[in-house]
């Protein structure tokens, strides 16, 4: 082997090794940060390890939202039609968070209560997250997503 070739081989070797190491680290980091999507029925049916990060999706139960005036903790329930799960969250809810609308919460389950770290609702009021739509269908209550239609001039009075 010529010295140039030897050098090239060494460089290639170093690159392959470091890329391999990076890939190993990446895969383990990925493993640790995977969030499984669950519906309220999934949570109801099985006992998952408490430390697991989850994405809970469903509809916000009508009349379930309440806020503690001192701690600013919000609690509400999420349903897929078959079962519902209580959720608690500290912080501001997204502006499109409404009762009866689709929502996704990130967090973990603790004694049957879902402790949300983050609550997401879509920007678009007609949007139903894909995962939520499928979860509702699986629970036997498919949600009709209506396309936006032109409305008459609807301004509210202030």
């Amino acid at each position, binding site marked *: 082997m010529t010295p140039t070739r030897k*050098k090239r081989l060494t460089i290639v070797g170093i690159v392959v090794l470091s890329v391999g190491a*990076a890939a190993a680290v990446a895969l383990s980091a990925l493993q640790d*940060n*995977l969030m499984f999507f669950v519906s309220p029925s999934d949570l109801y049916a099985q006992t998952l390890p408490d430390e697991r990060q989850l994405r809970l999706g469903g509809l916000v139960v009508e009349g379930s939202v309440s*806020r503690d005036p001192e701690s*600013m903790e919000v609690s509400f329930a999420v349903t897929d039609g078959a079962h519902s799960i209580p959720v608690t969250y500290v912080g*501001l809810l997204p502006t499109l968070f409404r009762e009866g609308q689709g929502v996704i919460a990130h967090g973990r389950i603790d004694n049957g209560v879902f402790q949300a770290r983050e609550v997401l609702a879509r920007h678009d009021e007609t949007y139903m997250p894909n*995962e939520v739509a499928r979860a509702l269908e699986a629970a036997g209550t498919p949600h009709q997503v209506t396309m*936006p239609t032109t409305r008459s*001039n609807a301004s509210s009075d202030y």
Partner: protein
Amino acid sequence: MIAEFGQISLILALVLASLLATLPLWGAYRNNQALMNMAPSLVVGHFVFLLAAFLALATSFLRHDFTVINVAINSNLLLPWYYRLVATWGSHEGSLLVWMLILGGWMLAVALLSRKVLPNYFMARVLAVMGMISVGFLLFTILTSNPFDRILPGPPDGQDLNPLLQDWAMIIHPPMLYMGYVGMSVAFAFAIAGLLSGRMQKEWVRWSRPWTLAAWAFLSAGIMLGSWWAYYELGWGGWWFWDPVENASFIPWLIATALIHAQAVTEKRGAFPAWTILLSIAAFSTVLLGAFIVRSGVLTSVHAFAVDPERGVFILSYMVLVTGAALALYAVRAPRVMTGQGFGYVSRESTLLVNNVFMTVAAAMVILGTLYPLLIDLMGWGQISVGPPYFSVMFILMMIPIVALMPLGPFTRWGQDDLKRVVSPLTISAVAAIVAGTAIAVLLGAFNLRAVTGWIGGLWLILGALAYLWHQKKAARRLRLTGGQTGMILAHAGVGVFVIGVAMVESMTYERTVRFAPGDTRELAGYTWHLEEIAPVKGKNWIATEGRFTVYRGDREITRLNPQQRLYHRGQQVMTQVSLQAGFARDLYIAMGEPLNDGTGAWSIRIQIHPFVRWIWFGAFMVTLGALTAASDKRYWKPYRAADEMPAGSQGAQPA
């Protein structure tokens, strides 16, 4: 009528693009000057028709032509004219039109600015390849996403542009981002033209560099504007969310960052030319991958366009076709690609190689995290998503060696160098960065691992760039930097500023959600926050509830902040309009939550203080400016002379 005019213009542009994709290429193959010379004229015509189509859509928006479906869905009578203009690219269809107009613009720019730089046959090939790319996008638009579709009779009034897009940053963010995306097709076209010519890699890489740098500058600026917009418009106070759509713009950015550094090696030393070609292809392929992620709706994201499988399939096939054809050509021609000079372990080539390894590995990590959920879903293994911590952890791991090694690069000589010689002029910078970085972090009360390493790393980059400036000044009696050197210093120092901003924001952001009734005063984070009143206000197409805050530091009034909760008339969308005071070392940031309905008129209010958050965007702005400065380097714009061209294989010993 106007919409039909736009439709016809679009079809004519397609005809011209098809001619452009074939005739000059045939001319270059047969060495037919007449056919090759057609390319620039076709490019002009192509651009004119695209501009006409764009103006037709913009006019339809401005004139409230609700018989055009796109206008009816994205605009209404109450929308002010400047947001009607934004609405032109606020939807999937309209944004594609802008995308193509910008593609036409890049082609025109290449035809005009590189006219004297490129030999005839090369120009013909570059423009023809871009013509092919345009054919694909025009077919996509006309077949699946026609912005000029009509609905008869039209509704009396339209719906609304998403209120989040009713913001001035939306006037420049998408066009800027598209300038970056589409600009990657220029680098791609140069690489393909280079492969087709089959010789003189060094030359075409030099011709390609300013275009790649410019595209990269626009991509950086576009991403920066998007981040800034998200920060104040989404109301969460974050500047980056590792959202799939953000990742879609970040992946090509990482690849392009590797590319501009690889190009330096190939241009100067002829080393790793095949890698440069591969990166040029990858940069554009990842742009198409991003388009797929954003426009197919396969991934759940905060701001993806509507779901349409047909579009997804089209873009995916297009991506496979473009990448496949490019790689096939590469496979055929690669054996002819020259090999450059060898280099030692300590050399400029090595430092740039390290940059490339880390940048491409980082890109691969982001791709993995973004596409993994899609793969799992396709396999039917369940629905998962990848949490932002994955990206943060991986990214910090990738950034540490890059930050540590970056200042060394410019000091290292091509070919072979001595580590001692490289390190010695940087000793002062290193010591100063460690001492000053730790001291500043302590003085700011930010004595934590992230902030301290952030300050040290950031100052190391800034002082390292200054050390290079100092070094150049000492070497020559009069300081004369090339555009490339000035650009590099600016960009590398900009990364330093960015790193400091990120470290401070990520470690020291203050956030509280508190209850505020009119008249309340609270002490938070060393400031006094007083809510005077909550009052209704009215805008052109919205009404809002506005909180009127005054912020004091001690007894001194600092600012008045008026966050709003807006209700848009059309579509009844509610939106949080944050109020913030920007500052050199911190932003005060208030968002309205919701009324608490406890009889006192109290609201939940979120108060945030973002330390050094401006540094993030200012750093990115310096990077952009640096790249544009580098692109203007005179060396790239020298008129072409046939004598410059060297036959393949023979490498003159050019000084670097």
